[in-house]
């Protein structure tokens, strides 16, 4: 391992020097075989080997963690990297942690240490990846639910599918704490999204001083906000019939708070897909419009997630992602096997809604 001094030098510019050059952070075996990989094989849950055209092999051990990582844990991971992986490690695009080993014999001891420290090893091939999530109540002012708590509760149930490799296909689960969707939820196999469902309450006394009225009016996607003086001063009125609780007005204007303990809740979405394999990328569709926020473990939402996962696991053919399974059995059957109620809210009535109807005689009877 190169010393820190070698890898990162203090930049010459005071600002705008950009992230450190990545090359020195690549393990030497990666540097030697960069761009020369020939094929890979999954050896067992959480372990794979990549074989280079040069004949060299690199073994990857992957484990799950919490994305919110303490410095203590960071140092612990660093120690494991030193012990088994020449001082290198990486994170995946879904917040798992990977150790790249040039020595096959380090696999089992590393797995043992990781397991002892509580890190589940797995998350490859027919398994669930680590759950992508956002900030939630921990840090975000617009959140309609907590991210870390829901994620933990869901992953406790999905743990068994992370450490094994028995799902029909890859499973991507995600959480977003408001419809800004800071992450992958819009195209996840299964996603929970926290929603408001009560119109914002205009703070008439405050709005004039802290918000720009025309900008606030313009922020509403459904024209539910109109300028309306209050006690002779400029303010706005919200048409409650029209409001779809998106919170965009609050994003631009703090005097339109929308968070509400009784009405903020979680919605469930299914069938998103990012890869191009077999079928085109797709956005996820609504499965359950609203479930209550139930800290600390959100049992209703967790159960809903597991209902989908188990129905898919049992019903899907090998290799079928969630959306491929649903497309094969049809949405009516999806609602039948999951027991979720189909409501008018499932029928898209937004801008492009009419493109989502069944314009054919295709029905399973």
């Amino acid at each position, binding site marked *: 391992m190169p010393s820190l001094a070698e890898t990162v030098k203090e930049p010459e510019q005071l600002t705008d020097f950009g992230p450190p050059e990545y090359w020195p952070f690549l393990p030497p075996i990666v540097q030697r075989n*960069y761009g020369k990989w020939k094929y890979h094989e999954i050896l067992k849950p959480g372990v794979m080997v990549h074989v280079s055209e040069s004949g060299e092999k690199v073994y990857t051990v992957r484990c799950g963690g919490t994305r919110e990582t303490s410095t203590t844990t960071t140092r612990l991971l660093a120690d494991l990297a030193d012990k088994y992986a020449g001082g290198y490690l990486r994170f995946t695009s879904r917040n798992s942690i990977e150790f790249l080993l040039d020595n096959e014999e380090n696999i089992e001891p590393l797995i043992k240490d990781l397991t002892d420290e509580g890190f589940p090893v797995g998350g490859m091939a027919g398994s669930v990846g680590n759950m992508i999530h956002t900030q939630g109540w921990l840090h975000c002012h617009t959140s309609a639910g907590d991210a870390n708590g829901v994620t933990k509760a869901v992953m406790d149930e999905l743990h068994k599918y992370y450490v094994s490799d028995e799902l029909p296909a890859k499973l991507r689960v995600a959480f977003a704490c408001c419809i800004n969707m800071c992450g992958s939820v819009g195209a996840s196999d299964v996603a929970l999204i926290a929603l408001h469902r009560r119109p914002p309450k205009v703070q008439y006394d405050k709005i004039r001083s802290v918000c720009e009225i025309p900008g606030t009016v313009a922020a509403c996607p459904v024209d539910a906000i109109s300028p309306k003086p209050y006690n002779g001063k400029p303010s706005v009125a919200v048409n409650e019939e029209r409001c779809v609780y998106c919170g965009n007005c609050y994003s631009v204007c703090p005097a339109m708070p929308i968070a509400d303990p009784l009405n903020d809740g979680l919605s469930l979405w299914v069938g998103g897909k990012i890869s191009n394999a077999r079928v085109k990328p797709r956005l996820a569709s609504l499965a359950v419009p609203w479930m209550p926020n139930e800290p600390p473990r959100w049992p209703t939402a967790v159960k809903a997630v597991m209902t989908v996962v188990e129905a898919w696991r049992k019903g899907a053919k090998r290799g079928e992602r969630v959306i491929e399974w649903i497309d094969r059995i049809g949405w009516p059957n999806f609602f039948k096997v999951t027991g979720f109620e189909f409501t008018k809210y499932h029928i898209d009535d937004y801008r492009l809604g009419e493109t989502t109807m069944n314009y054919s005689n295709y029905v399973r009877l």
Partner: protein
Amino acid sequence: MSNETAKKGKKWETPLLDQLKEGPWPSFVRELERCATTSPRTEDLLGQLEQSYKDNVNHWKHGGMAGVTGYGTGITARFSAMPEKFPGCKEYHTVRIGQTQGYFYTSEVLRKLADICDKYAGGLFDFHASSGDIQTLGTRTDELDPMFAELRKIHFDLGGGGSGVRTPSACIGPARCEWAMFDTLRACQDFVEHYQDELHRPMFNYKWKTKFSGCPNDCDCSGVRSDLSFVGVWKDNIRIDQDAVKKYAEKMNIWEDVIYKCPTKCMSYDEKNGMVIDDSNCVKCMHCINMMPKALRPGVVRGAQIRFGGKVTMTVGARLGFVLVPFYDIEKDKKEGYPFLTELLDRIWEFWDENGASRERVGELIQRIGIGNFLEEIGLDPIPEMIAFPRQNPFIDFEEYYEEEGEEEEQEE
């Protein structure tokens, strides 16, 4: 400064959060507690979070400002709405630190980052935040400049934010993947170095995200989560190792698992002819290659597809990226200093600047004013690769019509 000494007893009872220490998955509550042992502010964060768990609502104030001198972005300012009760959270800002490409680190640099995070923040990281940055949580406004000075020493710069170029990210690519059709890490690094100003001093109408995936498996989610998506692709034929195909045939049903699932059904297999692929109809979905990595390999004429206009919900609904450039010879462009890419972006950004509204992502804008017009402005030809199918309605806005000579006189006969 955040190198406070740890309190002995527990400052806040957290009966609700404690329930999230149970169960097999690693617990973020334990992580918070680990931080809390050395960081009083994170101890208060625990307390405030417990309060949210009781109240079913977050306790942060709306927005607020804080930053590093010389930068317009990189910090998410966050102020508690209950600063009296949780003084440690009064200012609990996030610092976005540009990640290394591919998220590769040495143990040494991680320890150094940890030291800084303990000293100037709440001892708490996001590895990584959703756009790709490393985030530290819990810095106070007056700590931002000193913290940056420390980060600067190990060559870590701030990430993006606001209405500008956001921190781009890349899949692991050639570092460990046999399918990387271009050098995702290099491309991403070159991109972020080139657009430092656009990253750090926002001047656009809204955010701009860029992601690089080495192949259509899109492990970096570029097609669904970025305004500008690069996805590696090949142009020539899939390379077939017929012997290896035969071996797969022994353990899997090639017809059922591979061929029927090819989106254009351009493959066939039998013992006599082996695997036959009509590459002219292959849409590079990766499926067959994914299923038989030892037998099938992408071709060798490689580049990237540029997809464009992806973004999430607000306010017109989420959009995926559509194909803007079906094949971009990125290696060639790189050699010349990226003239194609940088000029394209100049034109796009100029167009966005002139025509876009505030908080209107570029994909929303071009849909509003028409893709055809947009293409004309940025100097790309309309091509059928961009669309799923041509228009199905006759409301065509022809730009010109024929006029008879001297016809004006008759007009109002």
